[in-house]
């Protein structure tokens, strides 16, 4: 009796083991990699080639999906709803996925050598409850762009350093007439949180104070009122800044030579260089506190927990983080390094100088807080209302603060 029971137990164990290995092999035979489309020219070719190298080395196939930024949130959400998560995902947010327990932490999925190569600031930017879940894929930093010809025409020796100088400069440029615009302020839904972050920090404000949200602090109300005044009192911005997006609004006007100043980043510089129409300079953000701060943006790679995918994903990530691979891609896309080895290699590139110089003063949005994934969208949808004629900066910030506090308490 007992012998038979043992036999049954053995049979069950063996068949379970068989089932598990089969499962392992089944899941490991292919991994799904979802990458956001940074540019038509570079993104797909690079990842396609990387996937082919990976398959050659490991025998594991790669189901590569390159998805444009407009629809990636929606598509990833659909994958999760249908219980078909990717193995590797590239996105500008990670904390909500970590909070839902969907991700492998770094110690399970990255070799120590890869992890130690990350720049410290970006390691911190990917941590959730003390563990690293969001691995830096690339970074960027904003910089202050100005139209040299318009500044000279307005009799300005150089770009403004303080907010007072900035306002004077914007006034003088606007006063040139003929449709010239002092400063292009994009607070429409596309990317308002970025523009707002920079102004907020350069007035000494912040998103949070300690662990608590502090969106409606007195400082921040003062900052948003300053921006509203630029639009409605001083009238030195383009029409309806609360309803202007970045890409097809503010950047387009700057590229057309109509605008004196705008906050841009390296892809804008690449477009300006290609068009050769505007003689521009790049400087530091004007500051009201004496210390110029800019916005750094870290995008992430995440590894989803799926049965038996650990080894395959680990090899894939290690391949991407090999210095020659990651640096080749980041350079091609015109972004900034996230690894120590990458920084050493790229610091000689003169085109990246202004951004690399700004990087030590760059701050990240509070992406490590899962509530940020909602706060960001709330800011994008609503902050523009504050700078419309009759808008109420304090009221808008109060509402954002209320929603942020509610999101933080998990409602």
């Amino acid at each position, binding site marked *: 009796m007992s012998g038979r029971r043992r036999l049954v137990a053995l049979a069950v164990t063996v068949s379970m083991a068989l089932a598990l290995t089969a499962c392992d092999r089944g899941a490991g035979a292919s991994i799904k990699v979802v990458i956001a489309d940074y540019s038509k020219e570079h993104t797909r070719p690079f990842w396609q080639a990387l996937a082919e190298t990976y398959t050659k080395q490991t025998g594991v196939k790669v189901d590569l999906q390159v998805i444009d930024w407009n629809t990636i949130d929606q598509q990833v959400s659909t994958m999760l709803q249908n219980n078909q998560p990717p193995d590797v995902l590239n996105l500008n947010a990670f904390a909500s996925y970590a909070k839902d327990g969907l991700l492998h932490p770094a110690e399970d999925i990255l070799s120590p050598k890869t992890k130690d190569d990350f720049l410290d600031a970006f390691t911190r930017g990917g941590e959730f409850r003390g563990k690293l879940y969001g691995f830096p894929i690339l970074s960027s930093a904003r910089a202050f762009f100005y139209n040299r010809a318009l500044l000279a025409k307005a009799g300005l020796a150089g770009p403004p350093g303080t907010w007072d100088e900035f306002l004077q400069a914007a006034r003088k440029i606007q006063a040139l007439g003929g449709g010239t615009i002092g400063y292009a302020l994009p607070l429409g839904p596309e990317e308002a949180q970025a523009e707002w972050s920079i102004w907020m920090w350069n007035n000494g404000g912040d998103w949070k104070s300690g662990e608590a949200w502090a969106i409606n602090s007195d400082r921040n109300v003062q900052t948003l009122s300053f921006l509203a005044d630029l639009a409605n009192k001083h009238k030195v911005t383009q029409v*309806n800044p609360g*309803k202007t997006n970045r890409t097809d609004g503010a950047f387009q006007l700057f590229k057309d030579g109509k605008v004196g100043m705008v906050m841009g980043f390296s892809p804008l510089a690449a477009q300006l260089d290609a068009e050769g129409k505007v003689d521009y300079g790049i400087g530091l953000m004007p500051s009201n506190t004496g210390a110029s701060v800019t916005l750094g943006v870290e995008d992430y790679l995440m590894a989803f927990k799926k049965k038996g995918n650990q080894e395959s994903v680990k090899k894939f990530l290690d391949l991407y983080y090999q210095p020659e691979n990651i640096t080749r891609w980041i350079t091609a896309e015109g972004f900034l390094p996230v690894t120590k080895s990458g920084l050493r290699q790229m610091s000689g590139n003169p085109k990246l100088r202004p951004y690399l110089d700004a990087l030590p003063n760059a701050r990240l949005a509070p992406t490590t807080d899962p509530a940020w994934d909602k706060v960001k969208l709330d800011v994008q*949808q609503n902050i523009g209302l504050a700078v419309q004629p009759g808008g109420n900066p304090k009221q808008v910030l109060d509402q954002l603060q209320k929603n942020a506090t509610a999101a933080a308490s998990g409602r």
Partner: protein
Amino acid sequence: MLYPAVLLVRASLSQYSITGLYQGAVGARNYGRLAAQEALPTVVGNTVVWVVVVVAVTVVISLGLAQFLNLEFPGRRLVRWALIVPWAASLVMTAKLFVWIYDYYFGILNHALRTLGLLDRPVDWLGDDATVMGAMIAVGVFVSLPFTTYVLLAGLATIPGEVYEAARVDGASAWRTYRSVTLPLLRPALLVATVLNMIYVFNSFPIVWALNDRNPGFGHDTTITYMYKIAFKSALRDVGLSAALGVVNVVAILLAVFVYLRAVRWREQEA
């Protein structure tokens, strides 16, 4: 057909995390939350204006166009083809094109109106709260005309020549003939055109999305774009709530079509 509908209803009764992770069934709670959304009355109002005005204006213009294209004239084939173009073009491309036509700084509309002396200063068509809806409606009508005109044209082709002859023999005026012969006989085609347009226009996403994407808040959204924003572009980021609105949308348009058909038949019986 049925399976997605079942999925939609099930999603509307569920709660999802911001990541899309299923977190369990919540009964009808999403519907209650939907009713409590502050933006809902505005959005519903926008949707009614959008559907009613686009469909009404489209049908009226299409009646004229169909009548015109039904005439024999040299080059008719060419004009008929030309009318198909906006239909064949993708809605997204058409919407993007109009975004640039309406642009405050670069758009040709402001340029043209100012050159003609009709405007003394440019208008921010897509940014000014007073003009956004009108701008969207104009594009909605533009893209709905081809289909509607062709349905009505097909309707006109089915009207036999003899009835017009009879009207002429009776000495009816052109207007009288149109009202008493053409319109009644065109009724089936009109009905089809109106009902299908109601559904298309109600469900239209690309135009409202592209022309309104620079505007903060929900002041110019229809229930379709609002549904998308609830799921992915607002602080709600809630697939369950969005699915609830999806269910409400389907029911609402079915109801609207039903009410319309009832009203039309009622008038018929009275006449």
